[in-house]
């Protein structure tokens, strides 16, 4: 019984982080129809900036929102300076469908190398603000810790913020409109290019938060070739696909499903199978329900 509760709580925590990453991928996909494989690099860079901010201010609480801000800025700059030129340059020819994918990969490599240039290849330790030792109820100690509670709270707060932005503001309406139909939105007076940059900025912030939260929850350190961030990218992608790649709610649900599945496999089957199960989940979703669990459209186009 205790083990079951523990597993669920761990699953929800890591699922919350995967959700953030999935949200980042969905936001980019909605605004530019590109899967941003550089998201892992951008999240890592933001986490490095977060690390510097912690050194500077001595407080994780200040560093976290600032790192998200930095992530948003980096992401917006990449969209402005790089993706626009790229999409314009490669809109034709046999490489058109492949070019954005390859370009974001190149970007991932460049960002990782830059991090290596600046911070070197050694591990940097990033401590969480709260203890990761579980709460004690009676005589048993849960795996669920103050840090995990904080992670869930922060993710929920980010999601509430995003929901309010999308549902209650004009900016949110423009974001939804230009994701749905850029041409018509442009005719209706929406500055679609600007809105795209905003979409990327929001994604950058979400990715930064995912990185800043995953690091203390996971191995606790960062380095340029971090496998943890590659896995974060892959799990974020899987979660986004489960949710249909187009839906923010879907991304959250996808993240939670993936987190729970991973936690249950870890507890009851063993660590060696985690990746294979996650991969199998991806393949099954893509074959059985390619539009995702939320998708209502008859099928995925293009």
């Amino acid at each position: 019984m205790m083990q079951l509760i523990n597993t669920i709580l761990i699953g929800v925590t890591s699922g919350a982080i995967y959700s953030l990453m999935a949200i980042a991928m969905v936001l980019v996909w909605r605004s530019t129809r590109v899967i941003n494989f550089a998201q892992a690099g951008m999240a890592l860079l933001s986490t490095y900036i977060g690390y510097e901010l912690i050194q500077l201010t001595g407080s994780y609480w200040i560093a976290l929102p600032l790192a998200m801000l930095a992530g948003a800025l980096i992401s917006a700059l990449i969209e402005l300076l790089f993706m626009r030129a790229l999409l314009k340059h490669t809109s034709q020819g046999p490489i058109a469908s492949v070019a954005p994918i390859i370009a974001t990969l190149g970007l991932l490599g460049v960002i990782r190398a830059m991090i290596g240039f600046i911070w070197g290849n050694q591990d940097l330790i990033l401590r969480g603000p709260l203890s990761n030792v579980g709460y004690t109820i009676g005589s048993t100690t849960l795996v669920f810790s103050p840090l995990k509670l904080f992670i869930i709270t922060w993710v929920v707060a980010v999601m509430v913020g995003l929901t309010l932005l999308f549902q209650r503001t004009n900016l949110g309406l423009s974001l939804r409109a230009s994701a749905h139909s850029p041409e018509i939105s442009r005719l209706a007076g929406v500055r679609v290019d600007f809105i795209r940059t905003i979409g990327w900025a929001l994604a950058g912030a979400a990715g930064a938060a995912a990185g800043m939260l995953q690091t203390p929850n996971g191995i606790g350190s960062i380095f340029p070739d971090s496998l943890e961030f590659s896995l974060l990218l892959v799990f974020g992608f899987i979660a986004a696909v489960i949710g249909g790649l187009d839906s923010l709610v879907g991304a959250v649900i996808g993240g939670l499903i993936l987190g729970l599945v991973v936690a249950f496999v870890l507890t009851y089957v063993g660590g060696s199978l985690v990746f294979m199960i996650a991969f199998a989940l991806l393949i099954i979703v893509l074959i059985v329900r390619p539009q995702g669990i939320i998708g209502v459209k008859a099928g995925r186009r293009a």
Partner: protein
Amino acid sequence: MHKAQKKQKKQKKQSNHIVLFIFFAFAIFLLSNRVDEFRVYQGASVAMFVVAIASIILLTGYSGQVSLGHGALLAIGGYSAALTRNYLDAPVWICFAVAILVTAAFGAALGTAAARLSGPYLAGTTLALAVGLPSIANQFSVLGGEQGLVFYVGFPPMRLGEDFTQYKWFFWIAASTALISMWWLQNILRSRYGRTWRAVRANEVAAELAGIKIGRSKVLAFTLSAGLAGLAGALLAMTISHVFPSAFPLTLSFLLLTGAVLSGITTLGGVIIGAVALVAIPQIADAIAIGLGNSENVVANLPGFLVSALLILTVLFVPNGPVEQMRAKRDHKIAHSRKL
């Protein structure tokens, strides 16, 4: 020139290809006697990259499917070759054949799922594979964990002479394998399958209306590409004499993709450009790093930086690769001069 004459000439050119390949083989084997050991070893790496890049060009350039996970396919090939060698004590060429078959079988299974996926979904799926698959090798003792397995192709045969070195033997094996696969691939691409892939790439709907079974054509491309990747994996394992998980990192997949884009992803002709570039980049990076003061951070990260920067620059400015770009320019010039 009359049409009939033109056609005849074209046919003649095709039949000459085998002669060309044999001449090519002769030339590079002669060359391998002239240069020092290190160059010979690099030559073996170039041959390995030629096979791996050709595999990506076949898949992405001709059949329009993106794979970011070719490193994982190379790993499968390398491991199956090593397992065959270690447990069955099979001759080297059988190990290579097993590597091709096992990886092709895996590719067929993956391709069946992949044929239903479009660009970004397939890219993400294969990326997931590249991240996860090598780490799985850590979990099974038969695969040797982090240390991996030894893969040794044996001494060069005695009749090649006393001073025939190990590296030269690697090079001979790798280069002849690469030449044979290129020749084979060249023919496949000119067969009806090649035409089918090009038709699907150009316009999927039109191809389907013309009676092409799109799914089947994509799965076939994936299978053949995986087979080639498996062969490249076995060659890689040969040149480093081992297979271990960190020999097939995510960066390997990116490296191969960069090689393919540099070669011109839609033409097989430039494959040697990409392969040579991939082997040369670490050396160039070293030279630059020394020029920049040889600090540790720069030395460790410059190769990765150059690879990624080249990838981005190529996609931005010569998206179809330098070879295709020059051809397009020439065609344009010819068309222009005729108009005048």
